[in-house]
């Protein structure tokens, strides 16, 4: 089954290409780690795949459907959890979830049951009727997670989903992601940090400046890491202590001057 296919995907923003021809095929349910430094084009790729950006060059197919031709059907069957996305803060989580649930055309009963249960599991049960403008980053992220999962999508796109979550919630979300994979879902997980995804991903794709520079399991990437152009980017993503030590030292020196 063809879950996801990108052919020579390009995106032009005001004359500059932020995606310079991405090719990618996913045929079986798996967790994909889509890794790259900030500004590499991760979010743009996801926005194209989720039908939010409609203008691009190349081909993009999700679940065998053309993103350009059947965006609504695709949106119905995927979930999208953006990073620190805006939500309607004056609403309560229950109201917000019932709002997004209705947009997916879910039954009132289903919405009520699922949102209540999921909020409770995320320890937001006592906040279910409180307005979200007083919520912390992590609490909002939880609501976004629920809103992206509630319609039981087949593919889930996550853009830095752990951002702002506390340590316990991070573990919980990681467990949820693993369980989702076992349930036969495909997860497309974008992050600028390697350590978040290295353990849960079946396949890691590294992009930099709009180009794919690596594709494989974490182990295979690691063993190839010392070869050629991959080296710098890989060390940057995994965090090279030596380099950071030097920078930190220089930082303190500025204060002394």
């Amino acid at each position, binding site marked *: 089954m063809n879950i996801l296919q990108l052919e020579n995907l390009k995106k032009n923003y005001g004359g500059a290409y932020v995606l310079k021809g991405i090719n990618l095929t996913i045929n079986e349910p798996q967790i994909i780690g889509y890794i790259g430094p900030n500004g590499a084009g991760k979010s*743009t790729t996801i926005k194209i795949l989720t039908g939010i950006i409609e203008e691009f060059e190349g081909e993009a197919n999700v679940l065998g459907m053309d993103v350009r031709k059947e965006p609504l059907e695709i949106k*119905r069957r995927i979930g999208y959890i953006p990073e620190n996305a805006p939500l309607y803060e004056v609403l309560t989580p229950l109201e917000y979830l019932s709002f997004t649930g209705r947009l*997916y055309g879910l039954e009132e009963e289903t919405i009520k049951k699922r949102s209540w249960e999921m909020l409770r599991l995320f320890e937001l049960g006592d906040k279910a009727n409180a307005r979200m403008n007083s919520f912390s980053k992590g609490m909002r992220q939880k609501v976004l997670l629920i809103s992206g999962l509630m319609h039981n999508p087949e593919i889930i796109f996550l853009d830095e989903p752990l951002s702002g979550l506390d340590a316990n919630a991070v573990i919980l979300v990681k467990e949820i992601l693993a369980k989702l994979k076992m349930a036969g879902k495909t997860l497309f997980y974008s992050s600028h940090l390697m350590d978040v995804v290295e353990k849960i991903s079946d396949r890691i794709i590294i992009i930099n400046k709009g180009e794919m520079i690596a594709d494989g399991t974490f182990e295979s990437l690691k063993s190839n890491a010392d070869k050629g152009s991959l080296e710098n980017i890989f060390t940057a993503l995994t965090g090279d202590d030596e380099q950071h030590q030097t920078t930190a030292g220089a930082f303190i020196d500025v204060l002394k001057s």
Partner: protein
Amino acid sequence: MEKWLLKFVHLFDFVFRKQGIDITQLHTIVETKLIMDKRRVYLNWRMGAQSEHSNHLRIMLGLYVLISAIISIGIYTGPSFIFSMTLFHSYVIFMMAMILITDFSSVVLDTTDNQIILSKPVSGQTLFMARQVHIMLYLLLFAIAMSLIPMICIWIRFGLLTVMASVVTVLLSVIFAVFLTYYFYLLVLRFTSEKRVKDIITWFQIVITVFFAIGYQLLLRLMDLESVTAHFELRWYSFFLPPVWMAYTLEAVYLRVFTKVHFIMCLLAVGLPFLLYWYITRYLATNFSLKLSSLASEHSDPVKPVRRHSGVSWSQRLSGVFTKVPLTKAGFELTWKITGRDKSFKLHFYPSLAYIFVFVFIFVFNGGQDIRQSWNGLAETDKFLWFIYLPMFIVANGLLFISFSENFAASWAYHSAPVQKPGQVILGSWLGLFVKYFFPVYLVMLTVCLYKWGLSVADDFVFGLANDYMCYLILGCIGRQYMPFSRQPGNRQQAGRFMLALLQMLIVGVMVSLHILVIRRPILFYAILPAILITCWLLERYIVNIKWNKIAV
């Protein structure tokens, strides 16, 4: 009220269905938006949640009823049918357009909607229509408030049939105003690069606002108010004025006449709104949402390499001239920079700058009279006073806006830094506004007046500058003081605004009389000018020494 509004929306389901719009989604979106409007909580980072302004809408509605009552006098006593109706519809269209451009511009161009809703299986068309319906509901409420009293007058004067027809024409006017505004936005969104679109729209809104102000002037000229017969002259440009179409359409109903002119006007009145509606929903709606959504996807421009000592900016140079203390300098430069970049500030303030010229035009040339005649006779009058004091009055209005910013939460920096005299920042900020916006306008005014009156007004402009500055400081002091850009927009306090405006007028009036006194007794110039300068100095001391606990949040 929401329930009634939603029921009302259901009446139009058949129209939406025909256009392939998902009605359930549409109702969900509209309902949610109404809930959100009702409980817009004004969050202040220091105080926590503040009270909800659920009365805001009612106050606005009340205000429109009040204005419409004044307009109704014109409608009731107007010299002719066409006059009354043109007046009525001009009022409706003008107010609608103003509301759309000012209060609803943020709703129209809101991009959070797209980020939240477009990732869900909602078509661009459905979302566009939901936003339309949401805005339309409010405009409908406003339209009812605006036309209630006028309609009663029309009933009494012109009969029931005319009233019933005017309900239709008012609705058409509303639709017309909405889609015309949209059309402008879409056009801009279509033909410019995405990067600068928001800037351009801001400028566009400013231009439209001015356009409407001037259009109103034109309309007043059209009506020959002074002659007793006061017949309405049909000129070629009448065919471009929607209120005139509506008036003629109603006349056809009222007098049961149907000439060629009536026919054309009728066709324009009924046809054009629908044509615009059809074209927009058919061809442009999807684009609109998508264009907006691509606006929202933040994209950093290619960064230019920054050199550390790359030239000194204007604001830095001028802040060196006008300020000495670091805090004042900070306030000066912050205000200078943010006023030039903040979209909502520009939107609120720049139109009023343009109004300076509109107002000067109105006051100096006295409405109805022949422009050339009044221009030639100008030199014998004292009307240069308008040129001196109007700019100050308008710029002083900006004092209200510089306390607001979308990015208001960033004002924590004032509180975390060891700011001992917050008044210094405030004074700097006021100075920034004054230097940036008042000086250039004042220079233009000076040039015009020197050309018209000659060197004799030079000393008036010297005196006027000092007097303006003093007045500006006083106007700033009578309100409550806020740190610059520290308040959330929408939190504008409506209550007491009218009294404050009256007080401001009074103060400006006193200052202008002071100037007139000096013109009558030139010797007083040497006594009053030093007094003003000392007052300015004292006022500055006062502002600088404002304590933290006196600063409102």
